[in-house]
C-alpha cells in the first residue's frame, strides 16, 4: 500500500502549504460557484413558527452537489502527482458525474465503477458520465451496488497505482482518504460559519446534515467543532424503518458494529459473522454499509448526535421544501430537512438551524417520481418507450 503512503505524503505536504488552499478556493470559485449561498428560508421558518431556518446551498455547486468540492480538490492533487488517470466508484452516479467532470476539466482519463443494479436505476447519470468522456464499468459482484463499486475501484487501484489515482467519493476508505475528503469538504463549514455570523451576528444552535459516507456532514460540522454550544446532528437513512432491517442506520440505534472492511475501520452494518448486510434507502447516496471513521469518532466522543429519517418522512420533507422555499433538495439532503423540521417548532424564534442541502434533487426525477407514484410521469415514460419501440 505504498500508494497510500505516497498519497498521504503529498496530501499532508500540500495541506501545510497555504497557496494550495488558495488554489483550491480559486478553482472552486471560478469553476464552481463557491462560496455557495446560505439561504434564509422565511417561509419554512414561518411555517414551523420556531427556529430560524437557514439552508446551506451545496446544491448550487457545479454538477449539483457537495461532491464537487472533493473531486476538484483531489484533481489538484492528481495534477501535482502527475498521474494521467483517475478512477472512482459511484452509487447514484452523483460522484461519478462529478469525477468525470473533474477529469474532463483537468484532462485525465477516467473510469467509473458502478454497480450493475445502480446503473440500471440511474441511467441518466451513466449517460452524462459517458458524455463527459468517462468509461463506466458495470460491477457485477456482490449486491452490485455502491459497496461493490468501491471494492472494484480498490482492485483497479492496487493494480494500476503507478498511473492511477482513486478519487474516493466520501470520507471513508483507507487513510488518508477520510482526512483528505473531510479536508476538502471543510470549505462548507468555513463558509457557513462566516455567513451565519454575518447574517445573524451569532452562531447557529443546530446544524443538520445527512450522513451517507459522511463527507457533507463532516464538511459543514468542521466549521463548528470547537463551538461546543452548536449542536451537530447527523441524519442517517432510516429507510423503511430501522426495525425492518431495510435501512442504512449505522450509528443510530446501535445497529452498526465496529469492523474492518474496504480498507478501513468503522461502524458497519454487518451480521454476527462479520459479513456486510444489504442496506436500503430511497436515497442512493446514503445506501451504504459504512460511515466515516472520523464521524464514528465524533459519535463516540458524543460531539455529533445521530438520528435517522425514514423514506416516507423524506419524501414529505422534500415536498414541503419545494412548495415553501422553491428549493429541490436531493433525496439525500432531504434527510437533513426532516430532522430540522422536527426540531424547528420546538425551538424558540431567536434560535437558528442550518440545514446542509448537500445536493439538488432534479437529478433524482426517476426516483422521486417513483416515490410519489406520479401518474403523469409514468404515462410520459410509457409514451417515450413506445416511440423508441417504433424505431
Amino acid at each position, binding site marked *: 500500500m505504498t500508494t497510500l*503512503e505516497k498519497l498521504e505524503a503529498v496530501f499532508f505536504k500540500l495541506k501545510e502549504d497555504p497557496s494550495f488552499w488558495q488554489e483550491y478556493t480559486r478553482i472552486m470559485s471560478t469553476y464552481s460557484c463557491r462560496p455557495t449561498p446560505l439561504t434564509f428560508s422565511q417561509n419554512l421558518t414561518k411555517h414551523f413558527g420556531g427556529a430560524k431556518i437557514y439552508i446551506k446551498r451545496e446544491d448550487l455547486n457545479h454538477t449539483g452537489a457537495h461532491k464537487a468540492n472533493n473531486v476538484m480538490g483531489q484533481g489538484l492533487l492528481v495534477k501535482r502527482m502527475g498521474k494521467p488517470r483517475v478512477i472512482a466508484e459511484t452509487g447514484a452516479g452523483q460522484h461519478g458525474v462529478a469525477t468525470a467532470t473533474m477529469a474532463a476539466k483537468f484532462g485525465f482519463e477516467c473510469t467509473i465503477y458502478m454497480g450493475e443494479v445502480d446503473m440500471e436505476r440511474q441511467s441518466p447519470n451513466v449517460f452524462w458520465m459517458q458524455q463527459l468522456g468517462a468509461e463506466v464499468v458495470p460491477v457485477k459482484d456482490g449486491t452490485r451496488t455502491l459497496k461493490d463499486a468501491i471494492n472494484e475501484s480498490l*482492485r483497479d487501484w492496487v493494480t*494500476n497505482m503507478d498511473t492511477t489515482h482513486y478519487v474516493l467519493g466520501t470520507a471513508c476508505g483507507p487513510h488518508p482518504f477520510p482526512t483528505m475528503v473531510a479536508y476538502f469538504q471543510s470549505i462548507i463549514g468555513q463558509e457557513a460559519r462566516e455567513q451565519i455570523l454575518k447574517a445573524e451576528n451569532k452562531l447557529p444552535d443546530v446544524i443538520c446534515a445527512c450522513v451517507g459516507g459522511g463527507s457533507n456532514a463532516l464538511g459543514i460540522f468542521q466549521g463548528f467543532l470547537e463551538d461546543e454550544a452548536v449542536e451537530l446532528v447527523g441524519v442517517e437513512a432510516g429507510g423503511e424503518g430501522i426495525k425492518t432491517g431495510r435501512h442504512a442506520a449505522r450509528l443510530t440505534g446501535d445497529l452498526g458494529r465496529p*469492523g*474492518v472492511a474496504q*480498507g478501513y475501520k468503522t461502524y458497519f452494518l454487518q451480521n454476527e459473522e462479520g*459479513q456486510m448486510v444489504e442496506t436500503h434507502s430511497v436515497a442512493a447516496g446514503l445506501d451504504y454499509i459504512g460511515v466515516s471513521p472520523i464521524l464514528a469518532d465524533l459519535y463516540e466522543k458524543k460531539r455529533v448526535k445521530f438520528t435517522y429519517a425514514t423514506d416516507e418522512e423524506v419524501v414529505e420533507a422534500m415536498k414541503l421544501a419545494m412548495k415553501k422555499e422553491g428549493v429541490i433538495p436531493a433525496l439525500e439532503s432531504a434527510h437533513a430537512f426532516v430532522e430540522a423540521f422536527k426540531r424547528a417548532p420546538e425551538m424558540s424564534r431567536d434560535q437558528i438551524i442550518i440545514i446542509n442541502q448537500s445536493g439538488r434533487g432534479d437529478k433524482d426525477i426517476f426516483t422521486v417520481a417513483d416515490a410519489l407514484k406520479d401518474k403523469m410521469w409514468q404515462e410520459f415514460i410509457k409514451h417515450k418507450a413506445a416511440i423508441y419501440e417504433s424505431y
Partner: protein
Amino acid sequence: MNLTEYLTQLKQKKKIGLMTHLVCGYPSLEVNYRTVSTMVEAGVDLMELQIPFSEPIADGPTMVKANQTALNQGTTVKDCLNLMREVTQKYTIPFLFMTYYNIPLQQGLLNFCQQTKEAGGSGLIVPDLPPEEAKEFIAACKEYRISPILLMSPTSSDRRLEMISRMADGFIYCVARKGVTGPKTDFSAAVRIFLRRCREKTSLPLALGFGVTSKADVDFLAGEADVAVIGSFMIKLLEKEGIEGVRSFLRTLI
C-alpha cells in the same frame, strides 16, 4: 512441527513446494472435501482454505464470485472450522485459513485463533491487514501457536519489508505483482529481483503467489521461492474441468 520447520524439511526433498487454495463453501462444502483429497493425493504440500467474506478487496473476479456464491449458499465460519477440522484430521499436510480481517475480528481475535488451532489449522493469511495494525492479531496467533502469515509485495519499501520480517512467522507470502488475485503474472526478471529483495530481509521460507498458472511458472520459481501458490487458477480449473481436471493439472506439476 511448525510451518517453518515443515517447509525447511520440504526444501530438502523438493525443488519447490506447492500450496493450493480453495474457498470454503464453493462450489459446495462437499466438493471442498473431494478437492482437498484430490490435491493431497496429487502431492500438494500445503493448502489455504479461504473463509468467504462479503468484501474481498484483494481478490479478482474468480475469487470474488466464489466468495459471493459461498456466502449466498449460507456458508458460515463454523462450516469453515468444521472443514478445517475434518481435513486436518484426515491429512498430514499443513492447512491454513485465508480470510479478511473482519472475520477474526468479529469472532474475537483470541477466540478465533483458539478455534483455528483446535480445528488443526497451522496459520492465518489476512491480506487486508497491514503490518502496522497487526500487533494484536499477531499476539493472538502467538498465544495459540498458529502462524500469522504476512505479505510482502514489490511495492513495499525496504523499511516495510524489514518490519514485516520482524513480525512474521511460519513463512512469508510474497505477492508476485501489484493488483488482485487472478490475472496471469508475467514471470520475468522483476519477480526474481523482488524475491531476492525478500530473501535479503528474511530467513523465513518464501511462498510466492498471484497469477501462478502453469508448470512453466512453477519451474521459473523453483530455486527462487520455497513454495509456489496456485489460487484462482485452481478454482477456474475446477469450474471448467472438474476435479479430474485439477488432478491431471497437478500431475503435470509434481
